[in-house]
């Protein structure tokens, strides 16, 4: 057993730290295992090292939108290409935890009125990381009814 891990467990057994603190400490000293939210990126891609795939965390969320003039009513095609760092996304999601409890009811009501049946009070800070991790695994491809009028791609890279 790792020495640091043993010390943490001894501190837990001695009642110096709580189980939650021990869990956080153990998580901090151990390298994070590969999770569902990780995608496979090829190390040294293109140099002939096939199979040398290394799991790396997605760093950015990309949103690509391509709409033609029929869809937007504007001249020529409209394209939107947004890259958002995952770190910023995490910080933004944490920001939601600052919303006062009194406002949750009103927000939930407003969200459900606009077709988003989400209960903010059910989103706990410990779920946020999981939410972001699942987002890393997300790929959405949308195409318009008439073939290629609008394309929306949401993916992580």
């Amino acid at each position, binding site marked *: 057993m790792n020495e640091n891990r043993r010390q943490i467990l001894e501190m837990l057994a001695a009642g110096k730290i709580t189980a939650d603190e021990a869990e956080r400490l153990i998580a901090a000293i151990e390298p994070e295992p590969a999770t569902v939210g990780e995608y496979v990126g090829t190390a040294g891609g293109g140099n002939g090292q096939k199979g040398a795939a290394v799991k790396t965390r997605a760093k950015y969320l990309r949103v690509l939108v391509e709409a033609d003039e029929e869809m937007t009513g504007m001249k*020529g095609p409209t394209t939107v290409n947004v890259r958002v760092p995952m*770190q910023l996304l995490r910080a933004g999601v944490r*920001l939601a935890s*600052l919303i006062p409890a009194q406002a949750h009811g009103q927000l939930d009501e407003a969200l459900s009125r606009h077709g988003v049946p989400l209960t903010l009070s059910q989103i706990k800070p410990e779920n946020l990381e999981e939410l972001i991790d699942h987002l890393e695994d997300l790929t959405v491809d949308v195409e318009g009814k008439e073939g290629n009028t609008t394309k929306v791609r949401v993916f992580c890279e």
Partner: protein
Amino acid sequence: MTPNFAIIAIETPHWRTPQLWLPVFLLWIPVILLSPILFLVLVAVAIGLRTSIWRLIALVWGIVCGLPGTDVRVRSEGNRVVVRIL
């Protein structure tokens, strides 16, 4: 890491700007000079939100540090806007 530069480019059918490299790191000067006022504002916000001032500062810091890498490109009707944060 906090953002150091912002690159902005705007293009219309009639005119275009060169890629503007804005030294965002220079904002540290007014931020430091105004830090007492900013701190009071954050305290007021923290009281309003019934949260800890340190938690709020950590959140704001997290957002500022998360900005580098942001890249927004929009093209419509012959106009093009690029905003990148490095």
